């Protein structure tokens, strides 16, 4: 090396200056990070250690009109995991399934939830049993990222009795999450799946809260972080319904295990739904925390179709219950009066062109008035009334009576009643020469191109029970909506109601009489074309109200393949009697 002192001194100066520059630059960099940018890093350091744990909001409690509980929340346990990545989730799930039993479906679901929202703890079991929870607590040390939370779990004290209108809750599906209707929902959250749980989802769900836990780098919870950051969940507000839980239970009991069909009870004055039941029902409590696969398959395989709501989704030919629509249309247009007789008396049938149309009663009813024709449900009278009104006006009348609409009940997926939109319907369907005016005869007695929902028939009869205003059926208490669907004078209204009372008094439903209460209503025996052993299976209908002079309840009952309308009348009258706290009188059953 060159050792001249000047060289050494020069190099020494250069080296020392260099050292000072390097170390001071480092110091400057630390000053920048620690003093100038301190706040930013402090925040990051806090965020680093805090894990946001979503806190499910209890759903709103559902009450009946007297404050009895229809749906409530019980404490349950949810198991979730806060994974680092897909691989760690997979290995954790594998590891977990050696401790508790996890089905392949549960594992797939967890992976799907994670992929949708990796920043949220991934739900593994939404309703873990106490035994699973205690096993997991035992093995907690092996699963540092496992989160066991107490979560509200939906419970319906009356289970199957209320299933028809209350619906159930379940995890929001992938398809839901993709649709704009479910914006803001997170995988693993519960949503209403049917009934008012679905209809009022936005109200019932409340708002999810969040708790911040301080965790270490391996995800183990160290302590609960400062509560000031936390956000308490907001429970959904309670929902008050018009349901009379006692009546609802009674309806369910009347149907029992044997009857198939649907029934609805309305308050005609405001449309409040007192009871709504579709038989057979199912146990909604089994749906909480994931529907057991075999139970679900059983429901789907049942040919009585328990998952179809017979009140709002089932469409049936209304039969004779529809004759009131024909009568109202004729009366409203001034084509007939309640005392008017038709040209051809009933001799058990009616010749129209080259076809002979039978009356249900082979013996014939003779020459009778409209009021009497309603009481005895004379087909021949209504054939002629239909012809007098004319097809075009019949169809228009049905439409203005709301018989081609949905009732507007606050339940999801209600089906619209089927009814021709105009005469043109027949041209379109059968070709201009493919049909004859004989369809008018069928329409006038509630057969033909006519399928009604139970709820929609109840709505129409609620207008008959009051002043021609049809109330929109409402399960949840809201401002009642009543729409004028026809206008008759007071005398005509009274006459119609008297005739309907006569159906029970001296007509087709004498067996449905109730002691001390005047019941009004109409039976219907709707032909279905379905035959077993050569005997046609008919739907049995009854729609009626009571008391006849001042109605407070409208009931529509439809028994699927239930035979004679009188059977439905019997069910309806016992429902009404239970509601009005009186006993029905059992008498000789008559034909309807």
């Amino acid at each position, binding site marked *: 090396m060159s050792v001249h002192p000047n060289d050494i001194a020069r*190099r020494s100066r250069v*080296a020392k200056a260099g*050292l000072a520059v390097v*170390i001071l630059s480092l110091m400057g*960099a630390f000053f920048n990070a*620690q003093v100038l*940018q301190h706040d930013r890093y402090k925040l990051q350091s806090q965020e680093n250690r805090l894990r946001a744990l979503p806190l499910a909001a209890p759903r709103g409690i559902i009450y009946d009109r007297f404050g009895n509980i229809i749906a409530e929340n019980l404490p349950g346990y949810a198991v979730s995991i806060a994974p680092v990545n897909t691989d760690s989730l997979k290995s954790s799930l594998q590891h977990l399934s050696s401790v508790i039993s996890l089905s392949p479906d549960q594992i797939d679901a967890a992976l799907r939830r994670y992929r949708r929202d990796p920043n949220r703890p991934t739900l593994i079991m939404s309703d873990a049993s106490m035994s699973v929870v205690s096993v997991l607590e035992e093995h907690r040390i092996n699963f540092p990222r496992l989160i066991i939370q107490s979560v509200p779990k939906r419970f319906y004290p009356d289970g199957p009795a209320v299933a028809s209108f209350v619906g159930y809750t379940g995890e929001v599906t992938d398809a839901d999450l993709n649709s704009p209707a479910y914006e803001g929902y997170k995988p693993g959250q519960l949503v209403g799946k049917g009934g008012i749980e679905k209809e009022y989802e936005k109200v019932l769900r409340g708002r999810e809260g969040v708790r911040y836990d301080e965790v270490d780098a391996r995800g183990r919870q160290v302590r609960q972080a400062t509560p000031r950051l936390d956000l308490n969940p907001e429970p959904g507000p309670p929902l008050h319904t018009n349901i009379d839980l006692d009546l609802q239970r009674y309806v369910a009991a009347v149907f029992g295990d044997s009857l198939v069909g649907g029934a609805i009870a309305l308050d005609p004055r405001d449309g409040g739904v007192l009871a709504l039941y579709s038989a057979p029902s199912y146990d909604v409590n089994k749906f909480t925390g994931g529907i057991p696969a075999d139970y679900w398959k059983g429901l789907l395989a049942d040919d009585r179709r328990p998952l179809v709501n017979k009140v709002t989704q089932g469409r049936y030919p209304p039969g004779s219950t529809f004759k009131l629509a024909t009568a109202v249309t004729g009366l409203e247009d001034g084509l007939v009066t309640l005392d008017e007789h038709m040209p051809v008396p009933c001799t058990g049938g009616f010749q129209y062109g080259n076809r002979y149309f039978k009356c249900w009663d082979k013996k014939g009813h003779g020459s009778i008035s409209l009021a009497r024709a309603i009481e005895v449900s004379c087909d021949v009278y209504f054939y002629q009334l239909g012809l007098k009104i004319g097809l075009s006006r019949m169809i228009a009348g049905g439409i203005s009576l709301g018989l081609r609409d949905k009732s507007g009940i606050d339940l999801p997926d209600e089906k619209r009643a089927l009814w021709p939109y105009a005469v043109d319907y027949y041209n379109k369907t059968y070709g201009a020469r493919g049909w004859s005016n004989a369809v008018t005869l069928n329409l006038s007695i509630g057969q033909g191109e006519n399928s009604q929902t139970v709820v929609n028939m109840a709505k129409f009869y609620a207008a008959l029970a009051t002043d021609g205003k049809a109330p929109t059926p409402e399960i949840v208490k809201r401002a009642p909506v009543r729409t004028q669907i026809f206008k008759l004078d007071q005398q005509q209204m009274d006459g119609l109601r008297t005739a309907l009372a006569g159906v029970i008094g001296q007509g087709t439903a004498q067996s449905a009489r109730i002691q001390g209460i005047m019941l009004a209503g109409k039976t219907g025996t709707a032909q279905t074309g379905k035959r077993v052993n050569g005997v046609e299976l008919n739907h049995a209908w009854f729609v009626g109200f009571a008391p006849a002079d001042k109605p407070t309840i409208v009931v529509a009952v439809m028994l699927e393949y239930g035979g004679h309308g009188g059977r439905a009348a019997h069910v309806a009258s016992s429902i009404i009697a239970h509601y009005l706290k009186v006993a029905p009188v059992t008498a000789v059953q008559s034909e309807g």
Partner: protein
Amino acid sequence: MFRNTLTDYPLAATAIALSLFGVAIVYSAGQTDIPTYVAPLWKSQLMWLCLGVLCAWGIGNSSVRLIEWVTWPAYLLTLFTLASLLVLGTGTGANGHMRSWLAIGGHRLGQPAELAKIIVVLMLAKVLAERREAPKSLLELWKPGLVVGVPFAMIMLQPDLGSAIVFVGIFFGMLFWSGVPWPLLVLLASPVVSLVLSFSTGLWGAWFLVLIALVLWYKPYLLEGIVLVVANVVTGVVAPILWEKLAPYQQNRLKVFLDPSADPRASGYHVLQSKIAIGSGGLLGNGFTLGTQKRSGFLPEQHTDFIFAVVGEELGFIGVALALALFLALLLRATRIASRANDSFGSLAAFGLMSCWLVHVVVNIGMTLNLMPITGIPLPFFSYGGSFMLASWLGVGVLLRISGEGRGHAGALLS
């Protein structure tokens, strides 16, 4: 003629202060919410410190001549050890694929690379001291190049990128101290610079023009000039091919150096957590042992590579400034010893040790703030590790001895 070795109190005091500071931080690094194996390590670190001080005292009482005499056999032994490592070496922990640990019968004896640094400094000092004049051409650098190049290549094969970088630092530092003109140093480094700049065609083009100008001005031998230019072209062009040859973890580390957010859960995660720890420390820090990043385990390698982040988080900028000031004092003292040494060997050895520490300090501390790539170089006197503590104190011992024999003034070498 033995002088009292402990006359250089400033050096000894600075080294002791740094070491005690370091042991305290190793203790703190073990204080986590959920105790880990790190918790008791401060005790063995303290033991290694005592052993190191003892060694330093021993060397301090020997003589520079003895050290110089031992250098050759020590160097050969080092080469032998490094070579055998490639066959027998074992990895550890996160660096399980690196063959950097010497183990016999399953017992890990240490990382020979740490001692190799000291030995290479001494060997290089011996070789450079033989010449009265500093090398003026690349050709004359073949011998020093070989002294560093062989162990460098062996360590690269382990592969241990960090230690290899230290060898480069030692090489350039000592060449500078021996009086090699700076243009020659630049020319020597030029192929590496080309390699680094080859990722950007524009930058490499600019650098290439500077290089041509430098070659024309400095006028090396024609052949050397041609070799240099060709070497630059080759490194500039083959870099992408070499890149493909790098181990994925090396690629990853370099990539993460360029963009720490690229892979936040892998290497970049370390840097991010380290920066967060340091930045959250603020001016005064969270208090000794109270760093939350460290306590909850977000800080990786908190007792080895990233130990300086613990200083930053718990003692704040005040603690960082103190540590940096101590390092500056140590490095300035070593430079002073180099400039006042009694002979060329001692002077070069002192400056070599200084260069070695400088690279360690700058790369390690710079790494915690993402100013340097993550190369796994430990921080002298701080990072936990027996062989490293021992090697650092061997260096202190050599410096004490050189200081003790020095004349105490610049220009001592002439008389």
